[in-house]
């Protein structure tokens, strides 16, 4: 039905179409009027704007996720096409028995939580510094946010050099402090923290921008009231200001966690291949490696579904929270 109106009013005369349909209602049954009756007066007419994009997103996002779920239930490997006649959960039990998968899941969790916490903390610190009535505010803010405009592929090049064993900036600084060199990328116990540090560098500016908007929304009286009460600056922030940043913290956390789940680009570019450094494999890299290097399509799909469920666990409550606050 809606299809017809979509293609029908290419001439741009949406008005006459709607008019005709409403008149038609009196003389007999009209599908357009029936749809508008059910969904609201503009439903059919506005659908030319939102329905085609919505169908595109529906197909590529939700259609693909359902398809992915189906593939994860098959035994699809190598070249050819999946066989959908024999569906079972074999790939999921295989994942649970695969120590590589369990390690990747643990690493994903550590990266998710650690990265989000340190980035929020640094971002909040930056926002408070910027908000202290400083000069050159724009310049500072622009530079702090700059890494965010760079590709993961680009920042991975910079940090591969920063973490270089012999001549990287980090090791030069550390040795000048009298400590020994550290093999940041090569040591499986350390590499994940090194990656976290680099990602924090890239995204702290984002957290800063979100917190800064939150800080600026707090009325000046709150600062003054705390001053009058004789609270120190630290105490004022801790007791009065930071508790009011709940909304900013939640939105920034969700976005940062989603970025952490997507850290694939960074890890791939760090080594220029599907196999990240030992100790830094996360679900995102494992999924792509299983699919495009090993051609284990069904298994990769099962890993992908795990990743998707993790995301849903974070984003679902967030969307529900936003919906309840009427922000959706």
């Amino acid at each position, binding site marked *: 039905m809606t299809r017809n109106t979509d293609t029908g009013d290419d001439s741009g005369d949406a008005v006459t179409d709607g008019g005709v349909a409403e008149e038609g209602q009196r003389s007999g049954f009209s599908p357009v009027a029936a749809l508008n009756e059910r969904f*609201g007066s503009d439903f059919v007419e506005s659908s030319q704007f*939102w329905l085609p994009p919505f169908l595109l997103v529906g197909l590529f996002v939700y259609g693909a996720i359902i398809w992915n779920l189906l593939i994860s239930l098959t035994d699809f490997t190598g070249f050819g096409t999946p066989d959908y006649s024999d569906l079972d959960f074999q790939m999921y039990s295989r994942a649970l028995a695969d120590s590589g998968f369990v390690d990747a899941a643990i690493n994903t969790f550590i990266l998710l939580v650690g990265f989000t916490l340190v980035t929020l903390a640094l971002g909040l610190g930056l926002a408070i510094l910027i908000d202290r009535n400083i000069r050159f505010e724009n310049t500072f803010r622009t530079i702090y946010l700059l890494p965010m405009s760079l590709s993961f592929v680009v920042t991975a090049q910079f940090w591969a050099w920063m973490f270089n064993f012999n001549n990287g900036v980090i090791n030069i600084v550390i040795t000048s402090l009298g400590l020994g060199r550290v093999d940041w990328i090569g040591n499986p116990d350390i590499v994940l923290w090194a990656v976290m540090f680099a990602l924090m560098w890239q995204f702290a500016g984002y957290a800063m921008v979100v917190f800064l908007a939150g800080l600026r929304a707090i009325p000046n009286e709150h600062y003054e009231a705390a001053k009058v009460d004789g609270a120190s600056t630290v105490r004022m922030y801790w007791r009065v200001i930071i508790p009011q940043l709940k909304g900013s913290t939640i939105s920034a956390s969700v976005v940062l966690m989603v970025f952490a789940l997507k850290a694939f680009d960074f890890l791939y570019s760090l080594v220029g291949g599907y196999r990240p450094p030992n100790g830094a494999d996360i679900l995102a890299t494992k999924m792509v490696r299983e699919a495009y290097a090993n051609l284990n399509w069904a298994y990769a799909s099962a*890993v992908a*579904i795990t990743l998707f469920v993790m995301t849903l666990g974070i984003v679902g409550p967030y969307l529900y929270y936003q919906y309840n606050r009427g922000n959706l």
Partner: protein
Amino acid sequence: MSNDARTDGGTVTEADPGASAGLLSGLDAYRVLLYLGLLGMLTFFLIPIESGLVTSFKTPSGVSGSLPFAPPTGGTFTFEKWRAAFDALGRGLINSALYAIPATVISALLGSFTAYGLTQSNWKQKYKAPVLALLVAGVFIPYQAVLVPLSQFWSMIPLQEWLGFLWALGINNDYASVIELIITHVAYGLPICTVLFRSYYKNMSEEMIEAARLDGASIRRIYRRIVLPLSGPMFAVVLIYQFTQIWNDLLFTLVLVQTESSAAAPIVLILAGLGTSLEGQDFALRMAGAFIAALPTLAVYIAFGEEFAEGVAT
């Protein structure tokens, strides 16, 4: 930019000349510490970039024999790596632009359409809400969850046959992946574009649109005559955000183009494998390549920093 120009005068530690005498005497340890903190963070954010920049101009002996953040001196200075990086990445610059620019424009336009249809039109909130929720949730989807179906989908579409007329013109048939990348990026970029435009349209003046509706203007006419002309600032935000995202993305290029030897290989795909070989790593080359790949987004960021900040903060 005008603010930046203003800040060029004077040094950072200088006291505010406009401050009253009371404030000047208040320039105490606290203020000094504040600016020290700000400058320390400035160093932290700039050192990886600065170190990359100076390294890209060094000869191999300069790279191994000097401090990573020290500028190249006489004998160790060279443009060689920039030339080599440009030779390797030049075609990638064009290939990336071929899909990044159309995908940016199309996704911004469609995002504006979608947000308008879901905001400035009267239909029941009860039915609008799930449509919106599905679109907003699309922003957060990890792309890994759709990769295998995406590969399957594009392998089922006979794009090579449909575009036969292009290959007949002498265009390398690797360029079919450009079309795939455009459609893919539009589909996955639409949710964020919609969310950005929706936040803007929600705050748009209702009266003007109501008045136009009372005059009998169609939804399409209202969009063309009122909403679209007023959307300029938001288009700037969305176009900048989307361009940066699409230009910077590696995952889809890896899956859809697959190999850097493809004639249509985007710049990020070539850069990801640049300067790494079995013999060791050529960091000067990798740094020069990183800057070439970053130039377009850096230029956009420097020119439109405000809009970029607005895009990421929403």
